[in-house]
C-alpha cells in the first residue's frame, strides 16, 4: 500500500519568503508527526497531531513555524519569513494510533528545504 508521501521533494526559497510543506499520511493513521533533520544529526521533533488537533507542539522552534491538519489527514507545515538556518530536511511520519513507540511511526522521504 501507499506509504507516507511528502511534497515537494525539494524546495529552494529565498530568505524572508513563506513556504508550505505538505504531508500525506498513510490512510487510516490518526497520528501525524513533523521532524526536522539537519546534516549529520538525528531527526528533531517539531509537532505531533492526534486527529485534527496539535497534541504537542513543544518542538516548534519559534512562532515562524506553524502546522495544520484541518481534516485529520493531510498536514501542512508552514514557515514564515524563512531564514538560512531553516535549511534542513523536513520529515513527516504517521502512526496508526495515539503516539508512542508501540505505535510504529512510518516516515516519508522528506522535503529538502534550502533557504538562500
Amino acid at each position, binding site marked *: 500500500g501507499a506509504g507516507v508521501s511528502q511534497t515537494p521533494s525539494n524546495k529552494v526559497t529565498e530568505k524572508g519568503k513563506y513556504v508550505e510543506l505538505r504531508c500525506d499520511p498513510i490512510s487510516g493513521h490518526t497520528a501525524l508527526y513533523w521532524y526536522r533533520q539537519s546534516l549529520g*544529526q538525528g531527526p528533531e*521533533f517539531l509537532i*505531533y497531531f492526534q486527529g485534527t488537533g496539535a497534541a504537542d507542539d513543544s518542538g516548534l522552534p519559534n512562532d515562524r513555524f506553524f502546522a495544520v491538519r484541518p481534516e485529520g489527514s493531510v498536514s501542512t507545515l508552514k514557515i514564515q519569513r524563512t531564514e538560512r538556518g531553516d535549511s534542513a530536511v523536513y520529515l513527516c511520519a504517521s502512526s496508526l494510533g495515539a503516539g508512542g513507540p508501540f505505535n510504529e511511526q512510518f516516515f516519508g522521504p522528506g522535503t529538502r528545504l534550502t533557504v538562500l
Partner: protein
Amino acid sequence: LAKTTQPISMDSYEGQEVNITCSHNNIATNDYITWYQQFPSQGPRFIIQGYKTKVTNEVASLFIPADRKSSTLSLPRVSLSDTAVYYCLVALYNNNDMRFGAGTRLTVKP
C-alpha cells in the same frame, strides 16, 4: 526523557555480526527501547522494540540486561545494504515523544 549514548560510528565487513550498544542510564520503569534505521535520503524505519531480556525479529535481535541501563542491537551477517545510521530511542510506550540522538553510522565494507 532518558538520554541515550551510542557510538558515533562503526565499521564492519560483509557476513559479520554487528552489535551496537546504547547506554540509557536514566531509563524509567515504564520506558521502552526502540531502534530505527535510516538510509541516506530516506526517513527512518522501525527495526525493533523491547522492554527487557531479548527480542528477535526477522531483521535483528535486541538484548536488554536486567538493569535495563543499556541495550544492544544485534545485526546478524550484515551485508553492504545494512550501511545506514541506527538510532536508539527510549520513551514511554504510550508517549509520542520520540527524541532521536545523533545515532550510530554503520559502514559495512566488502
